């Protein structure tokens, strides 16, 4: 079978808007885990409008720099990953807790379940945290993660990505997602990436190479903004139909 005939990735469907298809069949683990019944809509006024406030002790000074968590330097392509956390009206969300985790440059996670026969790096744990500043900016220094194989289908590989977890102002703005790198040849084969069915929405998961943020003689840079919903039930009326 040629890749053009691959059944793993379904054709685009712009009607999904910025949502993800939670029962996307190409991603096999959804089969027994995605809820089958329609979501119940809460009355807007009952939806909580606030979220957890994290103390300064949540983040230590070097948590934003994944290359300086050990005695030696990790191997790989050093990069800056930076951007802003915004609400859907474009206003910055300050003091948002942003947490990231990723594979090392060889595509291996420092996790006992990951048995990919690629080397672990004793100088790389692959986790970082920071708070956004008053303009909603976050910034990490890390390594470009490697692509890695997974068991979803024959010869399945994840495009390189960094996992992101973000807390907005309201708990209803909570977002866990993945940031990808521009031009990855694996995009068209990856069911997780393509579970976002609208190509315009999918593009929002891809960072941009950012020459202005690169550090000469030291690191390349990628820029990626994160837009959270405004929180509250009924912000995404399409969601119920796709539950």
């Amino acid at each position, binding site marked *: 079978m040629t890749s053009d005939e691959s059944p793993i990735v379904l054709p685009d469907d712009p009607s999904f808007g910025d949502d993800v298809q939670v029962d996307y069949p190409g991603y096999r683990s959804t089969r027994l885990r995605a809820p089958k019944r329609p979501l119940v809509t809460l009355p807007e006024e009952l939806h909580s409008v606030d979220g957890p406030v994290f103390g300064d002790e949540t983040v230590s000074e070097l948590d934003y720099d994944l290359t300086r968590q050990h005695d030696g330097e990790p191997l790989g392509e050093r990069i800056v990953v930076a951007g802003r956390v915004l609400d859907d009206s474009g206003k910055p969300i300050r003091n948002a807790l942003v947490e990231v985790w990723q594979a090392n440059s060889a595509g291996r996670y420092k996790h006992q379940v990951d048995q990919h026969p690629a080397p672990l790096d004793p100088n790389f744990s692959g986790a970082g945290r920071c708070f956004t500043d008053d303009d909603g900016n976050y910034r990490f220094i890390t390594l470009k993660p490697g692509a890695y194989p997974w068991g979803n289908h024959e010869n399945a590989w994840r495009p390189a990505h960094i996992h992101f977890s973000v807390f907005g102002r309201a708990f209803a703005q909570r977002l866990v997602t*993945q940031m990808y790198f521009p031009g990855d040849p694996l995009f068209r084969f990856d069911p997780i990436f393509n579970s976002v069915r609208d190509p315009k929405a999918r593009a929002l998961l891809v960072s941009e190479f950012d020459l202005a943020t690169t550090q000469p003689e030291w690191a390349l840079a990628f820029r990626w903004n994160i837009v959270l919903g405004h929180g509250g039930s009924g912000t995404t009326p399409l969601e119920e139909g796709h539950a």
Partner: protein
Amino acid sequence: MSLPKTPSQTVGPYYAIGLCRRVENELVPLNDPAAIRVIGQLLDGEGRPIGDGMIEAWDAAGGRWGRSGTDADGRFSFVAAKPPALQGAAPRLDIYVFARGLLKHQLTRMYFPDEPEANASDPVLSSLPEADRAVLVAEQEDGAVRFDIRMQGERQTVFFAL
């Protein structure tokens, strides 16, 4: 003008690297006189434990938050206090479920078993069919409160739109 939201993606199997680096499952300290243990199991559509899930609990009334990964048996646990009832609504915890295979986290609510009257008059609980109400009320178990989460099946947990 409204900006399009960044879409959700699964937390994947390795979230513990980034999200479980420290113990964060205590919404209140263990020695708080009001502390209650909240336990439960996260189960898939065949009733099997989901060993790579993560649960976040948010007590909106008390402003308290915690999270717990699930173990190989799909078990999670929290130390929480029962939130005060607010505006005619029964005390509850908002529960967010994350897992490999879940492309977007799911929101449910845990109500307390020793609040039959408040639960009966809660506007959200009382708007649901009886079987669904029962699924959202935790059970007493050995001095703890037990709240199992079923992603699918006849007794699927009720999940709310975000």
